[in-house]
């Protein structure tokens, strides 16, 4: 156990000497895909609750597709499936993008979390109290202004408890990245296991690291909810 830690603490935490690995890679994967996913989800969630069906339907199809299939299959399609097409390899720009494992992984993760986040935000927008919107309309808020000043800030706050689940889900999903050769915590654990045969210890360290990140995230979201959801606290 001690030898394992002494030999592998560096790759487990940040680098194996050539590239970013371990904890740093896992955190980068999680935060990058969450940011990209949120960027996708903000406009899509507004489209998802649109009263025009031709706006609503494509978004509904997108979330249905990405929430109804396993992330592993989505990753395989992005990483191995698309690159197996000759048309993609011949196009220099696409070739450069899909040849890199990290790009493919981030694409799959971002689209997946984007689909889930879209539904979370759309649910929050729908549960917006009617009176608030009517009051804002009476005060002259309309269209773009209504969304940027009233609906989206409120929806983002209200969706915080559900979004925290999604963040932890995403953290746990990043473990799939090792199947696309991205060196995250689990990949380092597998390498350590293959080299030393200390199975319980190698994967145990990885499990403990994920547990710590999960607890840290839960704590952060608890603080965030205290700060931004205070207005919903009935005891005040």
């Amino acid at each position, binding site marked *: 156990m001690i030898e394992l830690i002494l030999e592998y603490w560096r790759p487990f935490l940040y680098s194996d000497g050539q590239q970013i690995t371990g904890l740093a890679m896992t955190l980068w994967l999680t935060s990058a895909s969450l940011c990209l996913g949120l960027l996708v989800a903000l406009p899509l969630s507004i489209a998802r609750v649109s009263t025009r069906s031709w706006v609503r339907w494509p978004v509904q199809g997108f979330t*249905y*597709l990405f929430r*109804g*299939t*396993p*992330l*592993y*299959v*989505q990753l*395989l*399609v992005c990483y*191995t*499936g*698309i690159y*197996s*097409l000759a048309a993609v390899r011949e196009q220099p720009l696409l070739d450069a993008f899909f040849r890199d494992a990290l790009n493919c992984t981030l694409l799959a993760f971002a689209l997946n979390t984007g689909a889930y986040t879209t539904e979370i935000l759309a649910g929050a927008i729908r549960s917006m109290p009617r009176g608030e919107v009517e009051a804002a309309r009476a005060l002259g808020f309309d269209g773009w202004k209504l969304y940027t000043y009233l609906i989206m800030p409120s929806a983002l706050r209200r969706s915080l408890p*559900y979004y925290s*689940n*999604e963040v932890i*889900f995403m*953290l*746990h*999903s*990043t*473990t*799939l990245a090792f*199947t696309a050769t991205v060196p995250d915590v*689990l990949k380092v*654990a*597998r390498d350590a*296991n293959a080299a030393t*045969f200390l*199975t*319980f210890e190698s*994967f*145990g360290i*990885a*499990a403990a690291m*994920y*547990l710590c990140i*999960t*607890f840290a995230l839960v704590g952060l979201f608890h603080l965030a909810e205290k700060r931004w959801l205070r207005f919903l606290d009935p005891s005040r």
Partner: protein
Amino acid sequence: MLENVARFVATLEGFAPLLLQGVWVTLKLALLSLLLGLIFGLLGAGAKLSRVRAWRVSAQVYTTLIRGVPDLVLMLLIFYGVQTAVSRLTAVMGWAYLEIDPLTAGVLTLGFIYGAYFTETFRGALLAVPRGQAQAAKALGMKPSQSFIYITFAQMMRFALPGLGNNWMVLLKATALVSIIGLADLVKVAQVAGKSSQQLLSFLLLAGLIYLLLSSASNAVLRWLERRYGGAKQEAQR
């Protein structure tokens, strides 16, 4: 485009039995893990609501640890770890080498993991059954086992239904992970077929489509069950 589709349909004929086998493995795995998970969940919920402190603490540790660690890490830990432990044991005892087959390992791992999620669902549902119901059953002279089966359990399942449904959808998709530990499920079969026929993308998309069908079908069944037996709304959890 049309040519490609025609070519894919032509190859599909040869791979149909293999694909069906993969679908069968996925379904078997999902249903058996569901069953095991439900058992773990019931035991866990019972332990969480127990009067004995040790039971409560161990159930709390179980759900916290399992839900805090990614499925895949636990799967590898249990799959490789248990195999190593069994090999060591057989070596020490001088028994023949025993290999755990991937399906058993997959069912055990998924059942154990999702048992933690089911524990939380059942705990909430058990608390939602009014206490007076069990008291009334006792007053009518029912034995504790009768009271649990006919009164508490029967009503609890109605409250648990939405949570169980959500967990089932996550579990169904999580079965895709077992191809990583070497089980020939739908994903693995699609990869094999795609690589040997040089049509990887088409086969992967087909696998995705089959998962989509499976989750849509379960969605329909769950909606029917909720209409039929539901009556209590519970918050969605993933």
